[in-house]
Structure formats: C-alpha cells, structure tokens
C-alpha cells in the first residue's frame, strides 16, 4: 500500500483506518485513465439516453414500442397484402402515397420521441444560492426548520398577470408556460403533456414533430382504412364477401386497428389543431387558464391574435436549440448540478477527499481531479448540500441532494481569493435541517490539515482536528510495529 506495508494483517488494519481515503485514491488513479465523461451521463433528470447522448427519451418506453409495433405491423400488412391488389387494379400511386405517408409518420415519431422536448437545465449552486438569498430577503427571516411558503413571482405579460412558480427540484423560477414533468423529473419549456405513446414529454422543441406525427398518422390511418375497405369491396364484388375475407385475412386485422385508432387519433389531431390555432398548451387548456369562465377579461397573452400567425409560429417558427448540451464533455471548470440518475452517486465527495488528501501529509496523492463525473462513491458517502440552503425541505428531493456544491466550490479559478466551505450531512439527516450542526470545512488550500469525514457523524472543526490527530497517531503506531 502507500506506506509499503506488506504484511496482510497490517494492510487490513491500514485499510480499516483510512478506508475513506484509500478507496478514492485507487479510484482516482483509475479515473485518470478514463475518458472524459459527457454531460448526459450525469444528467439529473429521469431520462434515458441512447447512442451516446444523441437520443433522449423518458424512463418508461414500453408504450412507445407498442406504438411502433402497431404502426409497423399495420402498415406492413397493408403493403404486403392489400397493395398488390390495389396497385394492379386501381393505381400504383396508392402504395407510393402510402409509403411516403408511412415514412413521414415514422420520421416524425422518431423526431418527437428522441429529441429534447425543451428541458430546462437545473440551476447551478451559485444561481440557486442567489435566488434563495433574494427570496429570503423578500420573505423576511424565518427560523430553522421552517418551510417557507410556496414561492411565486408575479409578472404581467401583455396585460395578463401570470404567476411564476419556483421549482424546488430544479431550483429555478419556471418561465411562463413551463412545467415540471414528474415522470421525467425535469422542467420543460412550454410544457404540453407527457406522452407515453411517444415515450417523451412534448414541449417547446418537439411539439411540432408531435403534431405532425399525429396529423400524418391520422391521414395514414384513414388512408389504410379506406383502401383496405376498398380492397375488400372490390374483391367481394368478384368472389363474394366471405371468400374475399378468406383471401386476405390481414385486412380484417387492419380494419380493426384502424377503426379504433381513427377515433382517438383524428380526435387528438383535431384537438391539437385547436390548441395550435389558439396558441395554448394542453396543460393550459386542461387547467382552463385562459378561458372566459375564469374571469371575464381573461385572455391568452401568448396568442398572436390571428389563427394563421399562431399556426405558423407553432409549426414553422424558429427551432430553439437544446439547452442541456447532452453530448458536451464535462469541463473541469464548469458547475454541474445535482445528479442522481442512473444510480450513479456523485463525484463531489470523492474530489473533496482527494482535495483534503492533498493537504494531508500521509496520503501522497498529488493531483487533484476537479470537476464532474467521478466514480461512484461506495456506500453512504459524505454528502454536500448547497451551501446557502440549510433547509432543503421539499419531498421531491432525492436522497442525495445538492452534491453540486462541492463541484462548484472546487472550481478553483480564484483559489487564493475564495475560501469555499462545504456542509456535510448524511443521507438520513438531510431532510431534517434542524438536526445536528453541519460540518464546515475550509478550503484545502487554506488548511494546514485535512480532516477525516465520518459519514454518519458530524463534528465541529475542533473535534475534527483532534480526530485527525488520533488517526495520524494510529497510523504512526501501525507503521512502527
């Protein structure tokens, strides 16, 4: 090991004492050989990414596969069984048009399912702290453990008063029309709804694809329905109805699927056409936000006034880029918000350990890896909650919140000027902010000795130093044996 202890007994004992530090050391060395991670790998929402971050979907994708199977099977049967007859007896344009429609439907479906719906990235710890400070100043002082009332801001848009809500998970004030999807655990801009058929949220960036998908699918469904019926009728004119059905049994299945789909899909297309022409989202329509029933002079402040402009804006307007940059590499000097996705616990505590290890004379790791995407820290690790918020109280917080603090604080752009500090709390203690006093640990650059952080216990710096001395003494004893 580090001190050249070879006997297994001593190694075991050595490990026991500085398990917390030795493991990150090993993984640190291991991490150096790893390629830099991409941002999607530490994305905090409950999304799934494929193709190295190019494809982004919701967690539950079962219904999406059902959609895909239904479309492909029905269309496949149509092309295989009905088209030959129709092409030869009516016109070959039928399979061509059908084919074009089919590929358009699939294209729009994939575009709607795989693209970023307009997810708002979570606030960096600095921003969250700044907002908390502003809200705290506005609300007035409150005692510890007291959960402040829901935070809202009012803004007047085009003459209508709109309330902006504060999202406790993303730590931002949601822009107007944005909403937090509980299934994906993201705030989405111009949130329409979460569509299980498409396997993704429908928001600002993929609404037009969704609309074009259901529109073209309704055309395809009606097309297939109509021509399958035509096929059966033409056949039964020649050979009788029952034998016509026997000759092309697939037609029965197609008719059934199309019949039941037509009602729902055409209905949905009609509904969304109405929404687009009035520039509303499903969310707003369901809540009746802009209906006249709420208040006499209630109107939609986002509508452009006439139907054509609303339609053009929704369908042909500029496509905003994705704000989450999922394929970007994690830079060592950028702040990363909390990540609890894909079961990976955060890196921050690892970095902190290495940071302190650098200052600790016994452990000789010289390089400190700073930044996001570290290896998972085993077991219950020390956690860092955002510095400013000693009262993280929303129930939607995962059990490992606010690890971003260390990630941000360790960005030593100005190491000599900023002295960062970190709060530590074990997972059990996080929900009760009025619990034991959080541990403060000055920045390693300013420390003469790093401390050991016991995950389940919190110390004030004084006893932490003595603990360190004890452990140093223990190590010295071991090495001298």
């Amino acid at each position, binding site marked *: 090991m580090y001190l050249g202890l070879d006997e297994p007994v001593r190694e075991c004992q050595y490990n026991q004492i500085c398990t917390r530090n030795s493991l990150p050391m090993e993984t640190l060395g291991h991490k150096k050989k790893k390629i830099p991670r991409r941002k999607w790998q530490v994305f905090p929402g409950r999304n799934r990414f494929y193709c190295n971050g190019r494809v982004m979907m919701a967690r539950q994708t079962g219904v999406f596969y059902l959609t895909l199977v239904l479309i492909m099977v029905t269309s496949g049967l149509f092309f295989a069984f009905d088209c030959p007859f129709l092409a030869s007896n009516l016109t070959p344009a039928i399979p061509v048009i059908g084919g074009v429609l089919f590929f358009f439907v699939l294209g729009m479906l994939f575009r709607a399912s795989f693209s970023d719906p307009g997810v708002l990235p979570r606030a960096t710890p600095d*921003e969250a702290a700044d907002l908390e400070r502003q809200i705290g100043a506005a609300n007035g002082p409150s005692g510890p453990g007291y959960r402040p009332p829901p935070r809202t801001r009012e803004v007047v*848009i085009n003459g209508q008063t709109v309330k902006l809500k504060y999202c406790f998970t993303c730590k931002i004030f949601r822009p107007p029309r944005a909403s937090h999807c509980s299934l994906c655990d993201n705030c989405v*801009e111009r949130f329409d709804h979460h569509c299980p058929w498409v396997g993704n949220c429908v928001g600002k960036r993929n609404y037009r694809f969704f609309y074009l998908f259901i529109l073209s699918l309704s055309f395809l469904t009606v097309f297939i329905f109509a021509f399958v019926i035509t096929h059966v009728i033409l056949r039964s004119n020649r050979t009788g109805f029952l034998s016509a059905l026997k000759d092309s049994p697939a037609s029965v299945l197609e008719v059934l699927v199309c019949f039941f789909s037509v009602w729902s899909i055409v209905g949905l297309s009609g509904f969304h056409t109405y929404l687009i022409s009035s520039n509303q989202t499903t969310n707003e329509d369901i809540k009746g936000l802009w209906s006249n029933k709420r208040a006499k002079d209630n109107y939609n402040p986002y509508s452009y006034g006439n139907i054509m402009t609303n339609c053009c804006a929704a369908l*042909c307007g*500029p496509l905003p880029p994705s704000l989450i940059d999922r394929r970007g590499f994690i830079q060592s000097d950028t702040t990363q918000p909390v990540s609890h996705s894909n079961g990976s616990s955060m890196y921050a505590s690892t970095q902190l350990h290495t940071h302190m290890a650098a200052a600790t004379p016994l452990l000789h790791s010289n390089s400190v890896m700073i930044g996001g995407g570290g290896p998972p820290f085993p077991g219950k690790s020390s956690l860092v909650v955002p510095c400013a918020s000693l009262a993280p109280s929303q129930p939607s917080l995962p059990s490992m919140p606010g690890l971003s603090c260390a990630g941000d604080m360790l960005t030593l752009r*100005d190491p000599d*000027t900023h*002295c960062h*500090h970190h709060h530590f709390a074990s997972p059990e203690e996080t929900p009760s902010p009025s619990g034991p006093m959080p541990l403060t640990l000055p920045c390693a650059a300013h420390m003469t000795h790093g401390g050991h952080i016991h995950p389940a216990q919190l110390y004030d710096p004084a006893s932490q130093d003595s603990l360190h001395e004890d452990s140093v003494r223990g190590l010295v004893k071991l090495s001298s044996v």
Partner: protein
Amino acid sequence: MATHSLQDMRQQAAIAAKVFIQRDYTNGTVCQFQTKFPSELETRIDKQQFEETVRTLNNLYAEAEKLGGSSYLEGCLACLTAYTIFLCMETHYEKVLKKIAKFIQEQNDKIYAPRGLLLTDPIERGLRVVSFRKQCDSH
C-alpha cells in the same frame, strides 16, 4: 457561534462573487433579460454600459426568435426535407447564438475584463441568467 459566523462570511463571499441578471418575462416567453442595474456592480461599471450590453443581448435574442418570412421559409423547407436539411446547415437560431458568443467575447475583452468582471454566455446557463463573475484584484 464562531463557526456559524465564519460560515456566513464565506457564504457571503462566495455568493457575492457572482451577480446574476434574471430573465424578463414581461414580453412573454421570448428570451429577454432584465435591464435593471444591479447594485453589486455599482462600483465596477457604469449603468449606461451595462444597459447597453444587456439591451444588445436582448435584441440579438429577439432576432433569433423572430417570426418572419425567412424563418417560415426555413421551417417549411425543413419540414419538406423531413428535417434532414439541418444535417447540412445550421438553424437561424444557431447562427445568432454564434453571433451572441462573439459579441460576449468582444464585450469581455474590451470592457469587462479590464474592470475585473467576466460576463458568461447565457446559453451556458440554459438561458436563465446572464452572470457577471467578479475577478478579485488581489492576485
């Protein structure tokens, strides 16, 4: 308690290092930032300069999201080509974002860096805030 006040001081120092300009939603969901001059920057830059920077940014973002003949044409063309056209060319929005990045770089070089401030591109913050980072002069 001694620990707490040290904590608070450090907290203040850490927070005061960045100044955030929030979004201005009075015109709807268009990307605009508030032009109100924050008090923390009073000692560093003058109000006119700040307002001009933010207003130019606002204008650039408005240009990116503008609805007009060219954007409709781009949208229709993209739809007809099943959006494969964006494999070859950039969207109008992306072009303007590049312009904005250049503008911010320019502003930093000419105006803000000499005064010990660093303006970050809002796109890196998800278009939520424009942040000014104070560089300390002690080193």
